[in-house]
């Protein structure tokens, strides 16, 4: 008889509901902004959201990728969106989030955090985007084009951030290029909104963003312990707050509270899953309509403790001289002027780990290896994601780099936002065969093999 697998205590996250209500409130705020004289803007999750914050506290956004993911999670609506986009003549191979987003505009519908679809797409007052992936600027260029067909002119500003990536501080002329664009961006915001810009609000928002993104990394760092206190599926509902409102004080406050709660779980040995015995990390966005894949993995005692994606899309990290990858500490002081704030947020943002692979696959491979080592992962599940060329770029090189170091890699194809391109039963059959090849058997309900 085989020994039963060790069972760890588990318990729900206390701040779970707060994450949920922050998310609900976020979409509501956007939807109803005009009722209270406020403004609405649209742009990507990576855009410099702290900059429009200088227009006032009543300026609300909807960031494109989380919105596209919300649609993907609700497969029926996603399917309607895809049909609408294809009928409009766009190829089905384009970024799946972008297609979901356009689909909602074409259908003139809006989805709320809880999946309710309401009529009428709430047009933004302006677009505030940045560009590193081929689709970033063009995504919103088409939003503008689609809205224009409905008779609405949306002004758009897009900041080019494609200046490369380096583990050392970026060269000044690269930072200047982005800072100068943002300086123009502030004048443009004043012009298109008719509001006077408030530098103090900018400085506060920049500081909040730095805090939020550093704190999220601290939360992720706590997953280094065995058993891991939160699993990746749970993290998806938490990191999303950063993708929606990284510059907001409520985001920084929430991540602080979350960090303390997760630390408390670590102190008490509370696990994410009861039978953790094999630790994996993943890569890129999951197929959102099929998160049950994580639950199926639990049946084998497999926990996914994160990924460069969930750690580094929003979280900020840096390498220490001893080679350890750690949450990026905040600078010694908060910026006090417009120039200081813009420079601080640009330098901070250029450090974003999820930007490294856009330029050099070796950098992403290095970061993934650091996670495998420091987080004690047994294997890497690579999602060859047809829905996102930005995060799949160089993924084959990452696979080769990990294999070269003797790391176990399982790769599968899918699409984060278009279920037609994900074969759930086929993938599950292959992934379970992989676990079995690692010596794992399916656990019985009592936790024994």
């Amino acid at each position: 008889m085989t020994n039963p697998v060790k069972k760890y205590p588990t318990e729900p996250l206390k701040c779970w509901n707060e994450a949920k209500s922050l998310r609900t409130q976020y979409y509501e705020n956007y939807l109803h902004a005009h009722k209270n004289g406020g403004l609405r803007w649209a742009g990507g999750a990576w855009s410099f959201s702290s900059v429009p914050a200088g227009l006032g506290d009543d300026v609300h956004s909807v960031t494109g990728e989380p919105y596209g993911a919300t649609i993907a999670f609700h497969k029926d609506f996603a399917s309607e969106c895809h049909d609408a986009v294809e009928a409009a003549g766009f190829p089905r191979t384009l970024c799946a989030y972008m297609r979901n987003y356009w689909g909602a505009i074409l259908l003139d519908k809006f989805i709320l955090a809880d999946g309710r679809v309401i009529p009428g797409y709430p047009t933004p007052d302006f677009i505030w985007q940045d560009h590193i992936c081929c689709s970033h600027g063009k995504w919103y260029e088409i939003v503008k084009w689609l809205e224009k067909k409905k008779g609405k002119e949306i002004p758009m500003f897009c900041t080019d951030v494609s200046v490369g990536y380096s583990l050392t501080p970026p060269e000044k002329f690269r930072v200047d290029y982005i800072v100068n664009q943002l300086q123009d961006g502030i004048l443009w915001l004043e012009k298109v909104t008719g509001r006077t810009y408030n530098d103090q609000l900018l400085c506060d928002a920049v500081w909040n963003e730095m805090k939020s993104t550093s704190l999220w990394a601290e939360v992720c760092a706590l997953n280094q312990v065995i058993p891991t206190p939160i699993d990746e599926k749970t993290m998806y509902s938490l990191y999303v707050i950063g993708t929606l409102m990284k510059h907001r004080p409520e985001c920084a406050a929430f991540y602080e509270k979350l960090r303390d709660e997760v630390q408390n779980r670590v102190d008490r040995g509370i696990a994410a899953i009861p039978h953790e015995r094999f630790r994996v990390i993943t890569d890129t966005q999951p197929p959102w309509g099929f998160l049950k894949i994580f639950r199926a993995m639990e049946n084998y005692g497999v926990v996914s403790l994160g990924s460069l994606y969930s750690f580094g899309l929003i979280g900020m990290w840096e390498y220490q001289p001893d080679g350890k990858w750690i949450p990026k500490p905040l600078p010694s002081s908060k910026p006090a002027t417009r120039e200081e704030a813009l420079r601080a947020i640009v330098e901070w943002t250029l450090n974003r780990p999820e930007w490294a692979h856009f330029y050099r696959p070796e950098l992403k491979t290095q970061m993934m290896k650091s996670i495998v080592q420091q987080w004690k992962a047994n294997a890497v599940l690579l999602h060859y994601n047809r829905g996102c060329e930005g995060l799949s770029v160089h993924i084959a090189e990452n696979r080769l780099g990990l294999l070269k170091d003797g790391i176990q890699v399982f790769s599968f194809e899918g699409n984060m936002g278009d279920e037609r391109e994900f074969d759930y039963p086929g993938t599950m059959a292959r992934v379970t065969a992989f676990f079995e090849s690692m010596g794992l058997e399916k656990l019985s309900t009592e936790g024994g093999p």
Partner: protein
Amino acid sequence: MSEPFQKFRDWIDNRHEYAKEWKATRNRRIAGYFCTYVPEEILIAANVLPVRILGSHEPPTVTEPYVFAMFCHLCRDSLAQGLKGRFDYLDGIVEGQSCLHLRQAYNAWRLHIPIDYAFYIHVPHGVQTRHALPYYTEELRKFKRSLGEWTGRKITERDLARGINVMNRNRDLMHKIYEYRKPNNPKLTGLEAMEMVLSSQMVDKEDHNGALEELLKTLPSREMDRNPGVRLMIIGCEDDDRIFMKNVENLGATFVIDEHCTGSRYFWNLVDSSIQDRLVAIADRYISRIPCPSKDWPELTRIKQAVNLAQTYNVQGALVIQNKFCDPHGIEVPPLREELKAVGVPTYPLEFDVTVPWGQFRTRVEAFLETLTGLEELF
């Protein structure tokens, strides 16, 4: 009449032999580049021959370990050429930032194919912002310095002037030849125009300029013994599918203009030689050129150029080519088609992969041509 375009065809068919011989006789280096955003002026100034890396339209299975198959065939096919050793004479590779797809081909090449020199130029994407010019000038300064270190020879202002002159001459000559596509019976076919531009990306520009000058002497009196048929335009990404061009033109049509980077978009804009600082002048040319869709935001300016060309060259219809998996071009297909329709130019979209399924395409293209000639109304 002798075949005035044969020279260009031969250069394409024997591009590797040409490059090897060029290298042996001149004892100079050759650098491969992927995207037309690489400023060839600076390579020429460094006495390095720039040659464009393109595919061969064979299924690129050798790239599977290095590039996920959801990336466009151009990037996979180009890399496949390197993996098969067809560019074994290259001393270096250079890429000018454009789409993510080609960046992958560049990086895989750098990592897996022995090469002496690799440089990635961070060409700005924000070409519509006024800050792109100083930024890009600085980036070009770094490139120039790096090339100088690699070749062991400092690049002087005179060298840059030479690079600019030879490139501008090439562009200017090709412009003149494109003029001969305007008459009712154009003096060259779309295939010939493509071969002319493609070959300019493969051989020494001095040699190419010589051939263009010769061509310009005979072209005005060239008698075309074919019925031009429908005046077509071809629009899309990089497109070097000569068989497709030939097949379509054999159906009773002539491509009288194009909008892609193996055609007009490659040479349309010249370096402004009145700008004193030559690096600034070069940077300015690549920022203000007709943009690739990958850099064309927040305003869709390339579409205006496509419309302008369609009108200037009096086209009856346009084939819009979308390379499978290409986001920058794919995103623009509906607005592009709409703008052309608004000026009375019907369009037909076709999705290209590494090989073109001509059997299927033939029927579709024929049907499109019939709609343009009104023939379908007879039935």
